[in-house]
């Protein structure tokens, strides 16, 4: 998968910022059709074939920011202004979360192994000896792969002493854990939404930016200007995403016009307590393993692909759901927006009445810049009593949920924990086996993104740095209870 920050994600953030600036200045409708030209000036040295294609892609990014389902509504004759008017008049539907830009798709050739010119045609020929399908022949003293026989096992790549074998993947297909990505007859990317679990791995992997999430930012910005009090529910992963400390981040969120800001770690406490009780019960009754239930992409995975896990996963609601219910009680007549790193949260939120919107950290960053808010210069919010739930901020990191649950059971030493840190194709295959042969664990913690929510598709900061910037209360620094495998 690509690094969090690359030319493409930075460009995306810049587009978001420009659109928001224009919106707040009140002239978005007027200037939106000129934005692609302003952002990609004639003089720019293009990363794509030409500035015109780059402008076309900026146009698409603006459409996805407006929540347009580009797959279905790619009307080239429609000016962006019309799309803006439509989105401002009526919130676009939330699902599906992902959409594709087929003109942006590079139609990557099918996954393959290829032997390059670096082949020295050696005597030992380990590639040939190790190929299980006899797919390697020598032509003119060099190894070559017979495509029809090759099963893409990669043995030849492993054994070549000259690194002459390269693996050429289709990044989106490789990243998708559930084979939801296919190429259509023309060779362009297509998402099978009946299989898609909205983990966002494909969008993060495509180096051309041909898969994009449909943003829910505009409905939220509209809420903020409507006069109704809007509560911001900030995911535990937010600490470390911006310069400054958590109290300053909260202050910055308030400065955007939110009526209140509530940590989702508060709901995570309820989740952890619920799961701890459930775990103890299962262990006493010897009912076998329990999985966590807070990762919404995992919930989708279980629903769509591994139905036997439905009665294995905890009945606890997610921290977001508990937090929303809490806020709805505490501040009635308010709207509630979840701010997090996750794409699949949109799917979950669409099923929960108490949640009115979901935006990502990346979109929050664009809001900060558009409103000229410097987080590090904010006057921190007054200290709050967070002692009861502050350890639950660890929900953002791999193994953090397990730690929070273990802290709340009577005998943590007795619990065997199996962390599933990141879900890919191989993990799904392993999990499928659990139906016949359960894992030797009592608590299985599943996080679809490797490293946890800190590495979600909507983050701003390299997870490695985010871990370092977090103020403590993360597994890497605290590491109180060593996990038993």
């Amino acid at each position: 998968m690509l690094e969090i920050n690359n030319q493409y994600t930075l460009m995306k953030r810049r587009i978001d910022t420009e659109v928001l600036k224009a919106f707040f200045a009140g002239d978005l409708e007027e200037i939106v059709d000129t934005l692609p030209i302003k952002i990609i000036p004639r003089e720019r040295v293009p990363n794509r074939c030409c500035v015109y294609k780059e402008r076309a892609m900026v146009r698409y990014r603006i459409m996805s920011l407006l929540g347009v389902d580009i797959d279905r509504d790619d009307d080239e004759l429609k000016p962006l202004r019309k799309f803006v008017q439509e989105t401002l008049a009526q919130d676009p539907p939330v699902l599906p979360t992902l959409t594709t830009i087929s003109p942006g798709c590079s139609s990557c050739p099918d996954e393959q192994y290829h032997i390059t010119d670096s082949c020295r045609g050696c005597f030992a020929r380990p590639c040939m000896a190790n190929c299980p399908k006899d797919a390697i022949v020598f032509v003119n003293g060099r190894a070559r792969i017979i495509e029809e026989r090759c099963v893409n096992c990669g043995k030849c790549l492993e054994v070549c002493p000259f690194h002459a074998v390269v693996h050429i993947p289709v990044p989106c297909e490789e990243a998708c854990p559930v084979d939801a990505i296919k190429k259509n007859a023309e060779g362009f990317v297509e998402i099978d939404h009946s299989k898609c679990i909205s983990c966002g791995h494909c969008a993060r992997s495509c180096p051309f930016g041909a898969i994009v999430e449909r943003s829910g930012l505009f409905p939220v910005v509209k809420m903020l200007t409507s006069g109704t009090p809007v509560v911001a529910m900030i995911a535990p992963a937010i600490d470390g995403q911006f310069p400054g400390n958590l109290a300053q981040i909260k202050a910055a969120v308030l400065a955007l016009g939110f009526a209140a800001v509530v940590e989702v770690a508060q709901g995570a406490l309820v989740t952890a307590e619920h799961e701890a009780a459930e775990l103890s019960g299962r262990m006493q009754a010897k009912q076998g393993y329990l999985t966590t239930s807070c990762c919404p992409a995992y919930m989708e995975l279980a629903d769509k692909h591994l139905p036997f896990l439905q009665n294995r996963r905890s009945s606890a609601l997610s921290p977001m759901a508990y937090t929303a219910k809490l806020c709805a009680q505490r501040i009635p007549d308010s709207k509630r927006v979840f701010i997090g790193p996750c794409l699949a949260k949109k799917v979950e939120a669409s099923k929960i009445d108490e949640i009115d919107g979901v935006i990502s950290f990346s979109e929050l960053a664009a809001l900060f810049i558009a409103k000229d808010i410097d987080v590090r210069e904010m006057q921190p919010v007054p200290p709050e009593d967070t002692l009861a739930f502050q350890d639950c901020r660890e929900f953002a990191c791999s193994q953090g949920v397990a730690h929070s649950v273990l802290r709340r059971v009577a005998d943590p030493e007795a619990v065997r924990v199996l962390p599933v840190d990141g879900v890919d194709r191989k993990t799904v295959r392993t999990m499928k086996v659990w139906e016949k042969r359960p894992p030797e664990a009592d608590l299985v913690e599943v996080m679809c993104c490797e490293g946890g929510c800190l590495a979600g598709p909507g983050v701003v900061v390299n997870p490695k740095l985010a871990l370092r910037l977090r103020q403590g209360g993360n597994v890497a620094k605290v590491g109180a209870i060593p996990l038993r495998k």
Partner: protein
Amino acid sequence: MRKQRIKVRICVGTACFVQGGADLLLYGDFLDPELLGECDIEGTSCLGGCKAESRDRKAPFVEINGTLHANVTPALLVELLREVAHA
């Protein structure tokens, strides 16, 4: 004579931070240890570069020995520091 240490100030104003400046804070990972030893690196409040952005000068900004540089990537930072160190 002892060489002057290189003063590096990485802007961690929000605009710089979220537009690639954060990655510069991983300097420990991409700077040559020898070069790193000659530098005093700190994160600093907004250096004001973003207020006077132009087409070619965009965030993130980094100040090296008093000179403000724009569009700084980890690779460019390495290059700039090498230049200063060998000047």
